[in-house]
């Protein structure tokens, strides 16, 4: 194994990890605030991805696809939250069942419209394509672009959480939802914001991911599984944990798929099981 190959492997892992982070950060925030395992997150990914594919096919512009994917995912997220989840607030079983139902129904709707064949975004204008060549080292620019975009989003998210009042309110909500509302905050409104924000991130992940991974109506369910492993490793409710978990799982999965492809799911579930045994609250989770 030479150094070039190693660098490529790491970058592949990081770019996959970047997608996982976009999924996992919204998922973990929604869980932290409202204690909902929002399986509909997988549907937001698929919706964002297919809207992006259609938009890019129509306009030939990657950025139009990204914006459209994020926007439609946001609208779907808003409908799910205001129309369904809000009606069963604080009743765990109906909440989970609704999110599962949304995932299944939307996956099937996408399947009915687009069929089950794998697709991907064709080289669209706007998105970096082709290879970055440095000496005899060549690497797809699109993957570097994904890493760059995600780093920017991650830093913005961090700054928002750490330095703004709304960020403090969200963290307060994660700490103690009831006291947050007793301090005059409309926690339901905050939850709607966070839920829609998470949907935007998932939709954007779909739009970006459709240029990287093959896309079928079931891609959302698949990446949701990875994102949940990331969140469990990082600690439910922790965005920093989601970042670390996403990098870990992105790297592990990429390396494992090259060297031990027959063990692919084992290699992500084994670290998760290990974390659950040694540190049940996750690497960055707080003990209740």
């Amino acid at each position, binding site marked *: 194994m030479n150094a070039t190959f190693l660098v490529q492997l790491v970058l592949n892992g990081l770019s996959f990890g970047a997608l996982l982070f976009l999924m996992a950060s919204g998922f973990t925030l929604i869980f932290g605030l409202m204690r909902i395992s929002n399986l509909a997150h997988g549907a937001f990914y698929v919706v964002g991805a297919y809207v992006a594919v259609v938009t890019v096919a129509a306009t030939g512009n990657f950025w139009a696809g990204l914006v459209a994917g994020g926007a439609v995912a946001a609208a779907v997220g808003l409908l799910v939250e205001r129309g369904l989840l809000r009606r069963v607030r604080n009743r765990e079983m109906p909440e989970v069942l609704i999110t599962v139902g949304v995932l299944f129904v939307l996956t099937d709707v996408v399947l009915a419209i687009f069929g089950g064949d794998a697709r991907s975004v064709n080289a669209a204008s706007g998105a970096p394509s082709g290879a970055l060549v440095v000496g005899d080292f060549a690497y797809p620019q699109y993957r570097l672009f994904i890493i760059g975009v995600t780093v920017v989003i991650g830093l913005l998210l961090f700054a928002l959480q750490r330095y703004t009042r709304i960020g*403090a309110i969200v963290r307060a909500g994660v700490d103690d939802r009831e*006291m947050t509302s*007793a301090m005059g905050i409309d926690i339901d409104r905050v939850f709607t914001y966070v839920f829609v924000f998470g949907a935007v991130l998932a939709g954007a992940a779909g739009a970006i991911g459709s240029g990287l991974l093959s896309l079928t109506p079931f891609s959302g369910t698949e990446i949701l599984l990875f994102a949940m492993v990331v969140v469990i490793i990082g600690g439910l409710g922790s965005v920093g944990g989601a970042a670390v978990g996403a990098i870990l799982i992105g790297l592990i999965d990429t390396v494992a798929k090259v060297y031990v492809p027959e063990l692919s799911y084992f290699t992500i579930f084994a670290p998760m099981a290990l974390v659950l045994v040694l540190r049940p609250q996750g690497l960055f989770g*707080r003990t209740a």
Partner: protein
Amino acid sequence: MLTVENLHAGYETARVLEGISLTVEDGESVALLGRNGMGKTTLVRAVCGLRPPTVTADSAAVDAASGGTRSRVTFADTDLLALPPHEITGTGIGLVPQGRRVFGSLTVEENLGMVGGRRKKGNGKTQRWTIPRVFEFFPRLEERARAMARTLSGGEQQMLAIARALMTNPELLIMDEPSEGLAPTVLEVIRERLTQLRNTGLSVLVAEQNVDFALAISDRVFILGEHGSMAWSGPSETLHDDPEPLHQHLGL
């Protein structure tokens, strides 16, 4: 100002308050006493809109049993039972909950800055509370401004819980066992601050187990007794002169 009338409240597993009435007048400080588990917190939570407990507001059975009046909680003529907690805070009620419940992963400053309620408006009577003003009131909090609230001592957390409630610019401050677990010196600081607050015209409702502390900061006392009813009420002074009701209802 605050009127609790014939309040019935409880949990799925237990009926706790069975027709409680209590008032806090404008500028008055009222103590709510009662032994462990008599329902002080239940009353506080019902007033602040925190659920559970469920308030049986319009059950016909309750109405008949209590001579036809429903559970009513009003504050400045607003029906609180119809409001969610954040709107109740918006009417001018600040809560210092039992166990302090400051936001542990926020700094002291963030705990103060996140509140809603009348943060921007003020309560229309006294000077509006701001972070600098709160720091002047509790200098200890300014020293710990950047510390995570979970790293504060119990006394500091209690100051923060009070300061946080003040930031909503309340007209009525409701405190649930503020003395719990505090060293006497710290308790003395809190008592002094509360006296200062009362002098500005702030109304206070304080649920307490610590009778000396409660009597020191209140004008009037209500004692919750067995069976979810009010066992005694009267001016604090009466109890200074004749503590018999304390013996009888609190087992002192």
